[in-house]
C-alpha cells in the first residue's frame, strides 16, 4: 500500500521535472487573476504552530483565507503544508500526538474551542486527499455517504448524486454505472469522485492536499478546470508541489519553507510569504520565495 503511494509520488515528481523544464515565465500565467477585489475572510490563522509531540512541525503561520477564492500553499517537502491544511478541518485530531497552538478562526469562531465538535467542522470544511481514496462501495454510495450520516432524507439522494457528479465533471462518464464499485474507476475519475463526495456534504470550504499528484496531465487538467468552475460556490485551499499549478489556478499563494529550529535540531516549517499569486510569482517580497519560484532552491 504505502509502497505504491511512494512510487506514485516519485513518478509524479519525475513528470514534474519535465514540465518544469519548459514552463513559461510565471508572471504571464498569474496576472489574469490580479484585478479581483478582496473577498471576505472565512478562515483566519494567527501565529499558528502545530506540534507533533514535542516537535514543532510548523510555526508562525498568519493567513487569511477568503471566500470564493483559491488559496494555494507551496513549498519544499516537509515544510508543513499538509500539517497546516489538516489543522484547518481538525483532521490532525486523528494523530494522537498532534497539537495546535495559536489562533485559527472560522467565521470568527475559534476552531479549537472545546465546545466545537470536530465532526461538525469537517462537515463544513471538506477535504480531498493526495491519493484518491474512494470507499470500497458503489459510486452512488460513495457520494451519498456524507448526506446519509448527516441525516439528509433519502429522497434527495438521487438529486445530490447528480449535482455533485455534474459539478465534479464526472456525471457523463459514470451516469450509467452508478451502482458499480468505485474501485473500478481510473485514478483521475476516482479523484473527481472524491471531490464530488466532498461536495455532496455541501461544505463551505474545500481543502485539497496535492489532489493531482497521483494523476496524469490530462486528469490534472480536468481537475484544475473543475476547481475554477466551482470556486464561485466554495472557498478552496490547495496544497501543491507543482508551482505551475499554483500559478495557474490560485488567487493567493502561501509559500512555506523549513528551517533548522534553534530550540531543537529539527527542521521546522514556517510561512515565508503570503500574497496574491501574481505577486508571489512575479515579484516576491522575500528572497527565499524568489529562489524557490525561480527554481534555484527546493
Amino acid at each position, binding site marked *: 500500500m504505502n509502497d505504491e503511494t511512494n512510487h506514485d509520488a516519485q513518478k509524479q515528481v519525475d513528470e514534474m521535472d519535465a514540465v518544469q523544464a519548459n514552463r513559461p515565465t510565471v508572471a504571464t500565467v498569474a496576472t489574469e487573476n490580479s484585478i479581483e477585489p478582496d473577498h471576505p475572510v472565512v478562515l483566519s490563522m494567527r501565529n499558528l504552530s502545530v506540534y507533533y509531540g514535542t516537535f514543532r512541525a510548523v510555526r508562525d503561520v498568519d493567513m487569511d483565507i477568503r471566500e470564493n477564492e483559491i488559496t494555494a500553499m507551496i513549498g519544499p517537502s516537509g515544510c508543513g503544508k499538509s500539517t497546516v491544511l489538516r489543522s484547518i478541518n481538525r483532521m490532525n485530531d486523528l494523530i494522537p500526538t498532534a497539537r495546535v497552538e495559536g489562533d485559527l478562526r472560522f467565521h470568527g469562531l475559534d476552531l479549537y474551542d472545546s465546545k466545537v465538535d470536530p465532526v461538525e467542522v*469537517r462537515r463544513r470544511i471538506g477535504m480531498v*486527499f493526495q491519493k484518491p481514496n474512494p470507499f470500497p462501495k458503489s459510486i452512488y454510495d460513495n457520494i451519498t455517504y456524507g448526506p446519509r450520516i448527516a441525516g439528509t432524507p433519502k429522497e434527495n439522494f438521487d438529486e445530490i448524486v447528480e449535482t455533485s457528479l455534474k459539478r465534479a465533471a464526472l456525471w457523463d462518464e459514470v451516469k450509467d454505472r452508478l451502482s458499480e464499485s468505485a474501485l473500478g474507476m481510473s485514478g483521475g475519475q476516482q479523484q473527481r469522485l472524491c471531490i464530488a463526495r466532498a461536495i455532496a456534504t455541501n461544505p463551505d470550504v474545500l481543502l485539497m492536499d496535492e489532489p493531482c499528484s497521483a494523476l496524469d496531465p490530462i486528469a490534472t487538467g480536468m481537475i484544475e478546470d473543475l476547481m475554477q468552475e466551482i470556486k464561485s460556490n466554495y472557498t478552496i485551499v490547495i496544497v501543491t508541489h507543482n508551482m505551475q499549478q499554483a500559478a495557474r489556478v490560485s488567487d493567493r499563494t502561501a509559500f512555506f519553507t523549513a528551517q533548522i529550529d534553534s530550540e531543537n535540531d529539527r527542521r521546522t516549517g514556517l510561512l515565508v510569504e503570503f500574497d496574491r499569486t501574481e505577486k508571489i510569482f512575479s515579484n516576491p517580497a522575500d528572497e527565499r520565495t524568489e529562489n524557490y519560484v525561480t527554481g534555484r532552491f527546493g
Partner: protein
Amino acid sequence: MAVATPTTVRDTASIAESLRRKRDVKGVAFQAMMFLSLVITLGVLVVLLFTVISDGWPVLSQRLGGFLTSTLRPDAVDAGVVQGLKGTFYLCAIVAIVAFPLGIAAAIYMEEYAPQNWLTSFIQLNIRNLAGVPSVVYGILGLTIFVKGWGISSITGGSSPLAGGLTLSALVLPVVIITAQEAIRATPQALREAGFGVGATKWEVIKDHILPYAAPGILTGTLLSIARAAGEAAPLLLIGTISGIITRSAPWYDVTQVQDRFTAMPTLITSWAVQPDTGFSVENAAAAIVILIFFVILLNSAAIMLRNRFESKRSG
C-alpha cells in the same frame, strides 16, 4: 552506437575454469534435509489421519449414521456421539455469542480509541499474556468461577455447556482480540481519513468503513477460535463432563439444555480412549476423532482460504 572492438582473449580457459559449476554437496544436502523435515512433519499428519481413519473404520463404514445419532450407551456397538456433538455445538455457539462481540469490541477499543498511556500498554501486555496461559489453567478459572462461583453457578447450572462455553470464551478471547486487532490495523489510513473527511464520527467510520474492510480478517480469526474451542478438552475435564450415560438427548434447538449436565466431543473421546473395552477405546474413540477432526479441519481450511483470498485480493 559505439563500434564494438573484438573481445580481449585474455586466458579465457582459466576464466572458464574458474566459473565452472562446482558440486555443492553440502548445499544440496542441507536443502534436502530441510525439505525432508517438512515432509516428515507433513507425513505425521498423513499417518495420523490414516491411523484414526483405519482405527475408526469399522464404525465409519458400518454404522456412521447410527453413530452420529445415537447417545452414550453401555455397549460400544450401540454408543454414539450425538450428545458430544450437541455439547460441542453449544460450546461453540456460546463462544461465538460471548467471545466474538467482546473480543471485537476490545480490539476496536485498543486500535481506535485507546490513548497511548500506561493503561493501554498494560491491557495490551495483559492480552498477550492471557493468550499464552495454558488451557488447563482456564479450566481452573471455569471450575471456581463458572461452576462453583457464588451466584454464578445458579445461572450456569453447575457443570453445564454454559459454564463450559464461558470458560472456552475466556480461553479464546485473547486470540480473538489479537487477530481482530491485526485485521483492524491493516485497514488503510486513507480509508479512515476519507470517512472522517466527509464528517463521519468515529463510530460511523468504524462501523461503516473499518469493520467492513477488516471483516474477512476478523472472520478468519474467529473461525480459528471456534476450531480451537471445539477441540479443547482440558478445561472441560476440570469443569466436569459426564462419561457414563446421559439417557435423554434433548433436541438441538432446546436451548434450556445449556444449563444441564453435558458431554462434548473432546471429553467423550478422552473418556472413551482410556476405557478397557477396545470397542470404545479404539473404534469408537477413533471414529469420534474423525468426526471432530473433520469439523475442525473444515473450520481451519475455511479460515485459511478466506485469508488467502483476502490477501491476494488486497495485494493484487
